[in-house]
């Protein structure tokens, strides 16, 4: 039972491409998720009961479901609504954005709430308008508070992208799986995948830790 790690070298382009797809999915999902998440957070914190209830429903609903199920839902639902089939990649991407937005919303909401009321009062007392106060006093502080958690959630997101295996999108894990099956070398491939994710995520979380320490208020 010899191990043949040459396989990795042979298929390195394919594997790297798969890794790039993983990164791409992650980055787009993070960006979209944060934008939508901020929107949802503001809705949840708005004084209009209807808005806050709707956003609350959305967030709580999505957070109670497995990601796979949401992916299937969208895969099945979207083409029927739009009228024509949607490719797996786009479908998964949109699903990720919608799904992660629910988690980012809660993080952002917690971040904004964590800014002490005294700050808000001081800002208003100075004569700042609500909008300016949010912009110059609350949001900068909120962002600093929530950045580590946002980043941690993003690392989790990166791991979650491996789920696209289910719909056949060729990300890192799926590509490795394909190669493993065609070369009959599952051990080498899966181990490489695991180690790669381990190194990337570990390094990333260390960086986040350092970031957190460097500007601990």
């Amino acid at each position, binding site marked *: *039972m010899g191990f043949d790690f040459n396989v990795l070298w042979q298929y390195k382009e394919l594997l790297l491409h798969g890794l790039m797809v993983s990164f791409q999915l992650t980055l787009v999902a993070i960006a979209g998720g944060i934008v939508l998440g901020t929107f949802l957070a503001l809705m949840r914190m708005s004084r209009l009961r209807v808005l806050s209830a709707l956003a609350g429903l959305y967030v709580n*609903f999505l*957070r*109670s*479901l*497995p*990601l*796979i*199920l949401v992916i*299937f*839902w969208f895969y*099945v*639902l979207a083409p*029927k*609504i739009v009228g024509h089939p949607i490719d797996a990649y786009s479908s998964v991407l949109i699903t990720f954005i919608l799904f992660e937005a629910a988690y980012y919303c*809660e993080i952002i909401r917690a971040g904004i709430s964590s800014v002490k009321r005294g700050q808000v009062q001081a800002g208003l007392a100075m004569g700042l308008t609500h909008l300016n106060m949010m912009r110059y006093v609350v949001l900068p502080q909120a962002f600093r508070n929530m950045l580590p958690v946002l980043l941690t959630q993003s690392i989790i997101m990166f*791991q*979650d992208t*491996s*789920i696209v*295996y*289910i719909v056949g999108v060729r990300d890192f*894990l799926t590509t490795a*799986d394909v190669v*493993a099956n065609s070369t009959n070398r*599952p*051990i080498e491939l*899966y*181990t490489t*995948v*695991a180690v790669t*994710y*381990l190194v*990337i*995520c*570990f390094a990333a*979380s260390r960086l986040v830790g350092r970031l957190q320490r460097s500007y601990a208020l």
Partner: protein
Amino acid sequence: MNYSWDWGLLFREPYVGWIASGFATTCILATYAWLIAFSVGSVIGVFRTLDNKILSTIGTVYVEIFRNIPLLAQMFIWYFVIPELLPHDAQIYVKRGMPNPQFWTAVVALGLYTASRVAEQVRSGIQSIPSGQRAAALAMGFTSTQVYRYVLLPIGFRTVIPSLTNDFLGVFKNSSLALTLGVMELTATARQIEEYSFQSFEPYAAATVLYSCVTLLAITLMRYLERRTRITGTASAGGQ
């Protein structure tokens, strides 16, 4: 949108039987995995708070390995890689003798993965206890084990009930990944019904409802637990 609804299909055989069985599989899988996660996770979490360098390093290494690799990749490793590395007899058992290898592989993978999350919660729960408590317990003459048993763990666990509930729900949701190994849990069942009946929405809706119910149940249970174990006289720090 051209779609003929057929909600009745959910209540007809064989579909209703499949749903029940799929849901049962999910629940059983999740329960076994949670048992592993909670027991292993608590131990690892405690390790991380000890002064003993060896034990605390074991704890750290465990957590970093199991939480930085995606669960799906971990499942593949347990299913495809680990059996190849076992001694001969164990290998034969795992590949041929053991019943339901996919199910048990999923249980082990999910359990050990979640254990890393539980470990972090337990660690933070213990570390959030003011250091004076440990000092006072030691000063009385309690051994280290007794300090954990009578002071640090009772208080620490109470603090992290909300986060542990999150991890418990995570186990339920992540059990869906077992479908990649071929386990017929709830989501897999929904997909199978879709393939057989050509109805797309109804099966997934059923799965959705069931997952939501579990979540609601778990949150209710958590609130109850929190109230029952609240330390009298202190303001509850729980909530979302």
